[in-house]
């Protein structure tokens, strides 16, 4: 159990901490649906037209916790059933950051990858991954529609992969010490917050987006359209907000078990968290609740993609089908602590209320989430008259904020 927790923790960290996740605008803003997609034309590649015989091998590049074969926890295994059913011998290589994933994909040694939004677009642009013929993936039909053909898994409505699962960074609080129940991120950003010294915040440059999201609603005059596309002025406002927040913070967390412990002991009483942290802490008896504040939240959404040069394409398609099959998707979602992409997975989770807890299928909830994406100099909200701050600058600012 310890082992699997550690693993999940690493998985979570990887997913969260870094460059991760999806490019992002929500589904509501159709005008900017080309977000992240514009600025490049993907190489002309054809999707597979039909499946052949399984080639007997499959090399998987995945976030830790996304392709488990029982070696970390004998009860956590959705790779072995796949091997038995298809005869494809699986090798799993895990990666720690999207940047690492991109450079590993360039070696051409991997057949499939679980890519987050920023990695996926770079892979598509470089021609490392190819369009996916979703008609060859029977389980794709079951996947929630609001996850399909998004800016981070398709270009010009051509699908480049299969949605895997998603989650949001929620506002969590101790019900015994925080009242009334917070409905806004102002509880963690307002300089006069009554929870001074008891706030916990996420330790990653990407957390600047959380501040930008808050400013997007509270200071409309800044004109922030997407928390991952910030020009000089907007960026400075977000950084200033975080510097102002700094004295409120008891500690920044990048390890979800560490945060769980702080919440349980009351060293922190309010802050941003993953649903998995909230569940874990509640199960240990702490009076904790989580909420999606009125401003919305940041989050992640991942995609399985096929390598262009893969010599094992039939096995690759079989894997894509397997990973969104109700059984496997249920296991991954529960092990990692996120919402599954396949609604049928909801009936198969060990915890019958898993999907309810993680708001799977709740498109309204999902549309309030700004999926993590790596900020680049070219503004991904479609502005061309200004330059945006790239992730390198976000990182430096983060160091400065922490001081």
């Amino acid at each position: 159990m310890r082992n699997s927790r550690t693993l999940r923790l690493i998985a979570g960290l990887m997913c969260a901490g870094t460059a991760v996740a999806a490019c992002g605008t929500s589904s509501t803003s159709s005008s900017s649906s080309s977000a992240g997609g514009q600025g490049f034309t993907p190489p002309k590649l054809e999707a597979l037209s039909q499946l052949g015989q399984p080639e007997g091998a499959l090399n998987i590049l995945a976030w830790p916790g996304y392709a488990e074969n029982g070696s970390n926890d004998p009860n956590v295994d959705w790779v072995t059933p796949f091997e038995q059913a298809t005869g494809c011998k699986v090798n799993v290589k895990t990666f720690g950051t999207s940047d690492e994933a991109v450079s590993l994909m360039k070696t051409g040694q991997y057949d499939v990858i679980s890519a987050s939004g920023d990695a996926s677009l770079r892979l598509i642009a470089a021609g490392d991954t190819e369009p996916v013929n979703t008609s060859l993936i029977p389980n794709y039909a079951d996947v929630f529609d609001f996850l399909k053909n998004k800016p981070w898994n398709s270009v010009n409505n051509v699908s480049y992969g299969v949605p895997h699962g998603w989650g949001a960074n929620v506002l969590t609080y101790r019900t015994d010490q925080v009242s009334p129940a917070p409905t806004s991120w102002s509880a963690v950003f307002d300089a006069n917050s009554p929870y001074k010294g008891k706030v916990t915040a996420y330790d990653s440059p990407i957390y600047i987006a959380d501040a930008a999201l808050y400013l997007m609603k509270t200071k409309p005059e800044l004109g922030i359209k997407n928390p991952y596309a910030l020009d000089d002025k907007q960026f400075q406002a977000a950084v200033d907000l975080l510097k102002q927040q700094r004295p409120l913070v008891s500690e920044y967390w990048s390890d979800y078990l560490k945060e769980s412990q702080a919440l349980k002991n009351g060293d922190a009483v309010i802050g941003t968290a993953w649903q998995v942290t909230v569940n874990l802490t509640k199960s240990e008896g702490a009076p904790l609740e989580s909420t999606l504040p009125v401003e919305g939240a940041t989050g992640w959404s991942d995609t399985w993609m096929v390598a262009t040069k893969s010599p094992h394409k039939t096995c690759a398609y079989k894997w894509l089908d397997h990973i969104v099959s109700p059984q496997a998707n249920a296991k991954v979602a529960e092990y990692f602590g996120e919402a599954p992409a396949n609604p049928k997975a909801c009936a198969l989770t060990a915890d019958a209320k898993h999907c309810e807890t993680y708001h799977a299928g709740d498109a309204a909830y999902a549309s309030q989430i700004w999926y993590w994406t790596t900020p680049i100099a070219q503004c991904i909200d479609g502005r061309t008259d200004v330059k945006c701050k790239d992730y390198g600058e976000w990182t430096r600012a983060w160091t400065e904020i922490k001081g």
Partner: protein
Amino acid sequence: MSIAASVSGFLYRKPRLRLGMLLSAPLLWLGLAYLGALAALFVTAFWHTDTFTGQVVTEWSLDNFATLFTDEVYRTITFRTLGIAVAVTVIDAVIAFPMAFYMAKFASPRAQRILVIAVMTPLWASYLVKAYSWRVMLSGNGLVGWIFGATPGYGLTATILTLSYLWLPYMILPIYAGLDRLPNSLVEASSDLGGRSWRTFRSVVLPLTFPAIVAGSIFTFSLTLGDYITVKIVGGAGQMLGNVVYDNIGAANNLPFAATVATVPVVIMLVYLAAVRRTGALDNL
């Protein structure tokens, strides 16, 4: 004559070749893997990364160093890290000296062996386990709060406390070795000449064991300068130089800037080593 015998005969007549063959492997290791890696680090510090592809661009510039020197935040972090290193070293020296003194001069040989093992035992436990147990102890309703009625909480104090605990054996052992080498006859001679215990300690023991203390301080100092895990676990919202390096590699994929920051502790240690070389402490390592 067998081949082995002729080879050995040939090598017997060529002592230089023999020596060369013996030393080539360790020299290769030292030269390529060790110094080579350090050299690569310094070279990388002058490059920069392309923001979209994340590739390192091999163009020479001093931009990284300019950022390092002009941004106030890096100065603050450097001085904070230095301060923590000094505090940890002083605390460890103060705790370690009486302990090592008792071990070397008063304990029976049997007790000595047991004490040495006792000092080393914490080294056998995982670093993370020890850091996390301090986290639990320093928590709002942890052991420290329970005993003393208050806890420093997570932050600078907690970081210094935890690091002092972690590196204490590295301070005790060199001082113990230094004191062990100090002949008892010198102490006796001092008292024969009328020196009281304080005078003996100040004029005989301390000057002779000072190099051993410095040797221990090199460990505690350099280990603290490079640490980034403890401060993550008990440091609250604080950060040290190691965290800046880690964040630049792990989060920003900016290897060149990380390399630039990583040169700071190296430079500090070089200055420190140059300063202590005169004390003869390096002979005690």
